[in-house]
């Protein structure tokens, strides 16, 4: 026993050994006993929870990858470690992290350099088929440029990113022969306003203002009067950190402000659920604030309005918008122009599009995707079901 004690006493002559073992042992023990977290606010994602072990899963190698993710994502002081990495990258002179570029004036920008050509082709074809299927419909098609395309001036010197302008032109050309579809030139529109706050700094979406310019453009294309934002009551929500921040985890990122306008509606139906408001106000208090707009991405959302600017006596005016999440902050404006607004998100769509198209007689149909989503989204094919 005395011998044993002496051995331990001698340890103090080996500081590095002590340090190393204290470090890995204490972290291991505390990490094991500390409770797991379900959600990471910093990264805006759900974390892996304890995976269930079974011999079968182990042999099929389904257990180990999950377990490793679990250990990584639940690691003690995860956010502090991430912050430390972000800081050291900063001191190394890095102007990017995890595929997000740090642009000028606090703008975080997506670093798209290559695209999935195959999926893009498939998506172009799906929309073509949709246009052919509904030759009587009055379809507008719009691709929304992502912020890095419009805010080129904010990119660091020498960084070449994917050319969205060329892609938009090519896609639009594919549809130029059809009479029932008009393409909307959002790129020129956004370029005109590039010095305004039209894209979030820390999020991949356009701001409510960016969506507003697009809305005007759409209204002009369908020959309808548009609402003036100056007539609406404006609300600001501060301290928004979006998806780009979640990826890059930049320790000194600047906050965004979210603007929303008071919009009065009769009701909003998402599935069988009825809502009185078009915004999910609770979401303005949490990290993922953008999800407040029309309650995030849902299957089919039907908004009935109190009175539209373009009231027609004999018939209800209806619009269908097939969209990605960029559409969420765009939709509120439409409530001023149509009696009923149908919003379809194909990513969570369980209803058949053909059924909706047949039962409702839409005045206008708008298909609107951001370029990056239009390239990658595997659900566009559902538009033809």
């Amino acid at each position, binding site marked *: 026993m005395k011998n044993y004690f002496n051995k331990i006493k001698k340890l103090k002559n*080996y500081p590095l050994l002590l340090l190393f073992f204290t470090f890995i042992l204490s972290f291991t023990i505390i*990490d094991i006993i500390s409770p797991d977290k379900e959600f990471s606010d910093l990264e805006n994602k759900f974390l892996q929870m304890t995976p269930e072990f079974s011999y079968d899963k182990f042999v099929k190698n389904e257990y180990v990858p999950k377990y490793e993710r679990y250990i990584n994502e639940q690691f003690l002081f995860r956010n502090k*470690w991430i912050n430390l990495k972000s800081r050291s990258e900063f001191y190394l002179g890095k102007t990017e992290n995890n595929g997000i570029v740090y642009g000028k004036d606090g703008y975080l920008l997506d670093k798209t350099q290559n695209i999935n050509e195959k999926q893009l082709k498939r998506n172009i074809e799906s929309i073509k088929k949709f246009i052919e299927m509904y030759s009587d419909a009055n379809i507008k098609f719009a691709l929304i440029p992502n912020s890095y395309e419009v805010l080129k001036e904010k990119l660091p010197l020498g960084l070449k990113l994917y050319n969205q302008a060329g892609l938009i032109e090519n896609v639009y050309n594919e549809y130029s022969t059809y009479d029932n579809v008009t393409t909307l030139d959002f790129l020129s529109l956004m370029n005109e306003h590039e010095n305004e706050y039209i894209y979030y700094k820390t999020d991949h979406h356009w701001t409510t203002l960016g969506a507003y310019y697009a809305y005007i453009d759409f209204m002009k294309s369908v020959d309808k009067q548009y609402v003036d934002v100056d007539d609406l009551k404006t609300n600001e929500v501060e301290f928004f950190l979006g998806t780009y921040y979640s990826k890059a985890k930049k320790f000194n990122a600047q906050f965004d402000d979210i603007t929303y306008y008071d919009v009065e509606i009769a009701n909003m139906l998402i599935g069988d659920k009825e809502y009185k408001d078009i915004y999910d106000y609770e979401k303005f208090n949490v990290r993922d604030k953008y999800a407040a707009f029309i309650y995030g991405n849902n299957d089919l959302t039907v908004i009935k309005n109190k009175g539209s600017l373009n009231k027609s006596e004999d018939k209800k005016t209806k619009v269908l918008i097939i969209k990605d999440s960029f559409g969420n902050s765009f939709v509120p404006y439409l409530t001023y122009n149509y009696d009923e607004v149908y919003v379809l998100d194909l990513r969570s769509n369980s209803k058949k599009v053909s059924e909706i198209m047949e039962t409702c007689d839409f005045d206008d149909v708008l298909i609107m995707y951001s370029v990056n989503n239009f390239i990658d989204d595997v659900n566009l094919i559902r538009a033809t079901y």
Partner: protein
Amino acid sequence: MVFSSIVFLFRFLPIVLLIYYLIPNKCKNLSLLFFSLLFYSWGEPKYFFIMIASICVDYTLSLIIDNNRDKKLLCKVALLLSIMFNLGMLLFFKYYDFFIVNINKVFGLNISLLRLILPLGISFYTFQTMSYTIDVYRGKVKAERNIINFGTFVTMFPQLIAGPIVKYTDINVELKERKINYSQIQDGAETFILGLGRKVLIANNVGMLWDEVQTLGFSNISTPLAWLGVLAFTFQIYFDFSGYSLMAIGLGKMLGFNFPQNFNYPYISRSATEFWRRWHMTLGSWFREYVYIPLGGNRVGPFRKYFNIVLIWFLTGFWHGANFNFMLWGLMFAVLLIVEKRGFNKFLDKYRVFSHIYLILMVMLSWVLFSLTDLGQVAQLYKKMFIFTGGLDFIYYIRNYFVILVIAGILSTPVLKNIFNKVSKDANWIRISVTAIILILSVAYLVDATYNPFLYFRF
């Protein structure tokens, strides 16, 4: 499992070490064998049985050899079986598909491929066990009678998947009796941390640059960026591999084993000959001992001598991967070595600066061959490197990677290590703090790891 992961650092390692240090010496090998098998099967439970087969076959055949010294023929047959078994495994898992693809191409056949996942570390442990049987046959060592000891040697987790290639004769004494003391454990911990830092902080970081250059596509980049990319890979492969070897050596030390050194600042070499004395040293010496010297080495006629060099470097290249680019990579070094042996080395000896530039240039060009399995891509990159294309794209990447490239450059030379060793005599705390910072930063990078490739899975 790989060393550079949170699971290894904060689950596997502390548990293994704790148990290993607490149990009596008699049981240490058994626990090591058990944990090594767990380590090995962790990601690929299927291949557990290959490992067991490997242990049993070489164990039995070596015993047969050792017990029947007077029956020359039997010994020969046993040795041959062992070599055939080991090479057969390697050929089957690593090269089968490559041969079939090419046979199909040449003869217009349509034999189907197996598309097997390469068992972890198979290139390393087949070489280790082969050298064991050969050494027993040669009478250099007695066969290991304790199968737990032998199994421990074959599977020992520190060096199991990426070397260094540890011959049985390197550690046979330690396998039976080893002293583990504080100072050795501390040394081991320090070596391990330095290796971890090399891998996680440097290799992963510069590796991203090489990856980016690849994603941009060699036809879309400027000539300066092409060179920058190749420089990045040059650092990545070195820091990844040497970092991993260092981690292995450090872990070995913590467990009471002294593994051979695997890298000795290869990029300060002044000739290809010297480079191969400093790069992946255990592989080089393995080929020398078990192939080159049996073939007659350089004590043969000039033609045969050069043939031997070509053969050895062809095999060295092919060992790295089942593809033509690896063969070409090996052959490129064979040519350099022969040119140097024919008298170029005398020239290199005279011009210090030139010889450094020559070597690093040749090494960088060789890494192009090494890193790209598609020969069309190789040609494209060479073209980009030597036919000038302007552009400003490199500015962005220089800005992002300048600091890390400079650090990598400095750490490729022994300068810092010499300072480190001098300083530690008077101010141990500097040494300790630097090591602690490296450890903490490595963990931070591992927690937020979006890029942590393991270059040796295909070996």
